[in-house]
């Protein structure tokens, strides 16, 4: 067993290093990922150790990065692409949606597109415009893509390993505000399946479902609620496409109440899909409507306002109270 305490950023770095070491076809490519080690230093030291041919500083053109990654994948490579910030992915959105997502199906399965797109996402870092967004629903809506987001260092390491090994394109959303959160990573463990949720806190009164940066917020909310005598279960969904509805259903059949939390805008967000499906799956177990906590239908605000825009502990607890107020 080889366990060490790593930040999420270091765990991703270690995971990329493992992939580069074990599979000569793995490439890391993106803007500033080489000498600089990425703007968040996530790829720090990789180019030095694996060379410019495998850790590739690209021209500043996101569509070009993803488009050439597709070509490299067609040649047999497994590119791991970095998009520098969430709000910068849109020049590549066309290549991702019209090409990357559909090519395997168009070829009737005869070609595979093992491309991973890493995107640091989410707010609460006091950044300027376009640096704090949560566009995961825009990718989950597209058939052919898989979308995941780790919440802790061990998942960051293993989920990236699994994403790179996947023969499908995977959008890997990194919770940038949690990059420096530290936790135990066992790099010799046998990981569970990539697209399965995990119960990170057991409870009986209500289920909180979240992923990425909001898992920690939900755990804090559950701890605060416990002091008031409320028992909240917290699910780390980990995967946004596919979503592990079975695990959510199982939890909701126990608690009868569900609040979904994400930074992304509530409108057409992943919480909407979860609410609809869980209502259909366990209508008679629900004691309250499924509630959602997330961003507003407004452009991501200037950073001095982001604390009001983002779901925090108090907004989560407010929704918890509203859900618990429904009494049959």
């Amino acid at each position, binding site marked *: 067993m080889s366990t060490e305490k790593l930040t999420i950023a270091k765990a991703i770095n270690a995971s990329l290093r493992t992939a580069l070491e074990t599979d000569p076809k793995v490439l890391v490519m993106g803007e500033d990922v080489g000498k600089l080690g990425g703007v968040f230093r996530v790829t720090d030291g990789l180019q030095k150790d694996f060379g410019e*041919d495998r850790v590739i500083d*690209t*021209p500043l*053109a996101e*569509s*070009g990065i*993803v*488009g*050439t*990654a*597709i*070509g*490299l*994948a*067609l*040649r*047999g*490579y497994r590119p791991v692409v970095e998009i520098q910030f969430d709000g910068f992915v849109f*020049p590549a959105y*066309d*290549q991702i949606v*019209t*090409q990357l997502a*559909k*090519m*395997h*199906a*168009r*070829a*009737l*399965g*005869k*070609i*595979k*597109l093992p491309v991973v797109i890493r995107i640091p996402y989410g707010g609460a870092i006091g950044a300027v415009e376009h640096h704090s967004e949560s566009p995961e629903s825009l990718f989950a809506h597209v*058939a*052919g893509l*898989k979308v995941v987001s780790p919440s802790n260092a061990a998942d960051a390491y293993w989920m990236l390993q699994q994403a790179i090994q*996947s*023969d*499908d394109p995977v959008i890997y959303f990194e919770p940038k505000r949690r990059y420096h959160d530290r936790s135990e990573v066992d790099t010799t463990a046998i990981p569970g399946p990539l*697209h399965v949720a995990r119960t990170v806190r057991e409870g009986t009164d209500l289920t909180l479902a979240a992923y990425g940066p909001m898992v920690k917020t939900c755990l804090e909310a559950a701890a605060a609620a416990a002091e008031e005598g409320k028992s909240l279960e917290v699910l780390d969904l980990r995967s946004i*496409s*596919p*979503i*592990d*509805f079975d695990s959510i259903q199982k939890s909701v059949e126990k608690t009868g109440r569900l609040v979904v939390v994400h930074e992304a805008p509530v409108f057409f967000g992943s919480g909407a899909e979860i609410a609809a499906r869980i209502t259909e799956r366990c209508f008679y177990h629900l004691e309250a409507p499924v509630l959602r906590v997330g961003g507003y239908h407004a452009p991501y605000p200037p950073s001095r306002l982001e604390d009001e825009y983002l779901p925090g502990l108090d907004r989560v607890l407010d929704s918890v109270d509203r859900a618990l107020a429904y009494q049959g």
Partner: protein
Amino acid sequence: MTVDSTAARKPRRSSKRAGAKKAAGESELVQLLTPEGERVEHPDYSIDLSPEELRGLYRDMVLTRRFDAEATTLQRQGELGLWASLLGQEAAQIGSGRATRDDDYVFPTYREHGVAWCRGVDPTNLLGMFRGVNHGGWDPNENNFHLYTIVIGSQALHATGYAMGVAKDGADSAVIAYFGDGASSQGDVAEAFTFAAVYNAPVVFFCQNNQWAISEPTERQTRVPLYQRAQGYGFPGVRVDGNDVLAVLAVTKAALDRARTGEGPMLVEAFTYRMGAHTTSDDPTRYRRDEERELWEAKDPILRLRAHLEKQGLADEAFFASLETESDALAKRVRDTVRSMPDPDHMAMFEHTYADGHTLVDEERAQFVAYQASFAEESK
């Protein structure tokens, strides 16, 4: 001599200078076979083909045109939902397609029927997407011929990435990306030029300037001749008479050889004309004049090679007659194959969305099966 080949009257440079960079603004059209079927020499590009090879190119063009005409007819008869005709561009496609080696890789648009022919893709395979039974469906790796790409210009980046991979592998293959004058305005084409130049990727950008992007003339896409765009990216560009199969073959072969020997990308602008509509849904009478089409009819790629073969005595009546028979047989096979092409199985839409599976697809497939089964029960 026709208007567009006046450049050929410019004083020629010495062969010593031929390899040097072309000066900005120079718009020499590389031509080896005049519209009248006369062989002419060019200081930079030469070709020496046997009579058999010349007849082969002629055959390729005739069969491609016949296949294309049959597909247009099939669309008119309701057998295809749409067809994008290559009429007029046979030389650009056969010349460039025949310049590729088996190990080279081709990234087409949706109009490269002649290139597909050269690569050995069965013409009937191209019709599935136009009939609506699949979105392509052939195995790209079987003939190193990627699926048709409909989004304009996207494939230029795929070709560049593929070429970057070829270079990483240390292989001496080359890659060719097809696109048109309209696509030259796309950001993806510009980004492909940048990536190819920066990484010195072994890719040839083959632009068929057929003068029209649906209804928009090339003047709506560019203020300079398209081949000159290459200069700003730091690689050579050349304009070739796209209706001259010999010149296209010579230029493309030189560009591919250049790429495979590590000299990097090159832009080839094949100056040609879309004789038909953009697709069978288009009506060119709304935006262009018949006179323009007539001007280009005089430069027809097939007639000019036929004139050459006849004048030089390189093909006899028996050759042309047997080719006519072969064309008829091809047309019949295409017609029969399309008409008997089965609709896809209902379950096909759930196949191949993912390589490694997805629980939502499984769930929806099961719902669909149950829904369809409910009709079977009702009819009992």
